[in-house]
């Protein structure tokens, strides 16, 4: 029996669990729990350990499907999976949610995190949610990835549609395992489809009443936050440490002044202040709002930035 493995990763809500469910011939193993991250505004349940399924390719070959947890707080599982369970995987499928404010930030984040893993194996970028957000399109992805020095395959898929996700597997294994009847497999997996009509929308509906501040303060490692509007007026604020509160206010003022005076140099994206044994203070800005965060010093700057991007994006929905 030939055994293959593939690892799915990507941000929360990118469709990892759904994609694996679409492909699996067995009842998938998933380990969902309540979201405790910036994703809380988007969904209530998230994978904590991993997803697992099996796809029978032929009588004598099968594919083991593994999915990482999306939330950064379970990042230790990524390491564990890479070094043990899927160290011999054929490839990494990076699912990218096209509705994200900047999907390329996600790509960059995951490429950094999985750099050592993908050096030795195939990477496929599978773009999801393009039915909700058409742009960036395939052409744009290819150009941007080329600029980033990343030469890889990009496929647009619908994680709910087994035949669509199957294209990723075909791309990964077709040259390696000959004689697979992909069409018959697609028909067989049709029962796994969760395309509209079968999808439960209740989880999304439940999340509408959660404010950005609640979401921020519910995020691991964030201990305080300030939410500002497009005029940089404070909408709400909760920072216990008075010194940090004053510094963060000064940082917000500085960013506002820079937006007016130095806007010609480009968009002021963020201002971050760190120090040994100090909570990290940061201000993130987009056109409609700004967010000041006070976070645990153990969180890396990249993680703080990722969390802030999630919070700002989902607060617009």
């Amino acid at each position, binding site marked *: 029996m030939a055994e293959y493995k593939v690892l799915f990763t990507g941000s929360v809500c990118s469709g990892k669990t759904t994609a694996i469910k679409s492909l699996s011939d067995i009842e998938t193993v998933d380990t969902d729990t309540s979201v405790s991250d910036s994703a809380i505004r988007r969904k209530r349940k998230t994978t904590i350990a991993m997803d697992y399924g099996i796809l029978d390719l032929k009588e004598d070959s099968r594919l083991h499907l593994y999915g990482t947890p999306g939330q950064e707080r379970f990042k230790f599982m990524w390491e564990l999976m890479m070094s043990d369970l899927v160290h011999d995987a054929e490839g990494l499928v990076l699912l990218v949610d096209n509705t994200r404010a900047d999907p390329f930030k996600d790509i*960059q984040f995951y490429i950094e995190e999985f750099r050592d893993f993908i050096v030795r194996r195939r990477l496929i970028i599978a773009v999801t949610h393009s039915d909700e957000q058409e742009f960036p399109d395939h052409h744009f992805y290819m150009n941007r990835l080329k600029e*980033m020095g990343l030469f890889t395959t990009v496929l647009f898929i619908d994680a709910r549609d087994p035949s669509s996700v199957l294209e990723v597997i075909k791309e990964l294994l077709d040259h390696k395992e000959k004689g697979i009847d992909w069409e018959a497999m697609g028909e067989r997996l049709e029962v796994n489809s969760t395309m509209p009509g079968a999808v439960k929308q209740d989880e999304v509906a439940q999340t509408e009443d959660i404010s950005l501040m609640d979401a921020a303060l519910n995020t691991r490692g964030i201990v305080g936050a300030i939410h500002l509007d497009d005029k940089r007026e404070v909408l709400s604020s909760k920072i216990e440490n008075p*010194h*940090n509160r*004053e*510094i963060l206010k*000064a*940082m917000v003022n*500085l960013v506002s002044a*820079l937006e007016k005076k*130095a806007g*010609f*140099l*480009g*968009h*002021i*994206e*963020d*201002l*971050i*202040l*760190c*120090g*040994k*044994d*100090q909570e990290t*203070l940061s201000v993130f800005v987009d056109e409609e709002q700004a967010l000041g965060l006070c976070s645990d010093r153990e969180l890396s*700057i*990249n993680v703080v930035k990722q969390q802030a991007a999630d919070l700002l994006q989902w607060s617009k929905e």
Partner: protein
Amino acid sequence: MIELLNLVDHPGVVECSSILKGKEVLASSFPEQYKNHATIAKQSFNYVFATAAKMKSKHDEAHLEIGDKRLSGFLLKGDLILVCLSAKDSNIQQVRKQARQASAKLLKDELEELSKF
């Protein structure tokens, strides 16, 4: 001081750098095209570190992402600030590493000065 900047500047990581003492620029490798960035860095980092000091906090590192660049400020000792300009998508850990080298060099020079007495 310029030796220090030579140590910090590194292709693909830190494009150029400067050392500030308050509002005074002690040394700089910022080319003409980035003079606005240098000015913004000087004003911003002096302001933000002064505010932190006023609040008795020990924050000593700041990053400002503006356009496709990142300005990083490192409080070395006293009111000496090392400013580094890098591409926004460059590895921040590597920028830190370059700054640490400068900090170590300063300390070494200081010890050598003391040992003369």
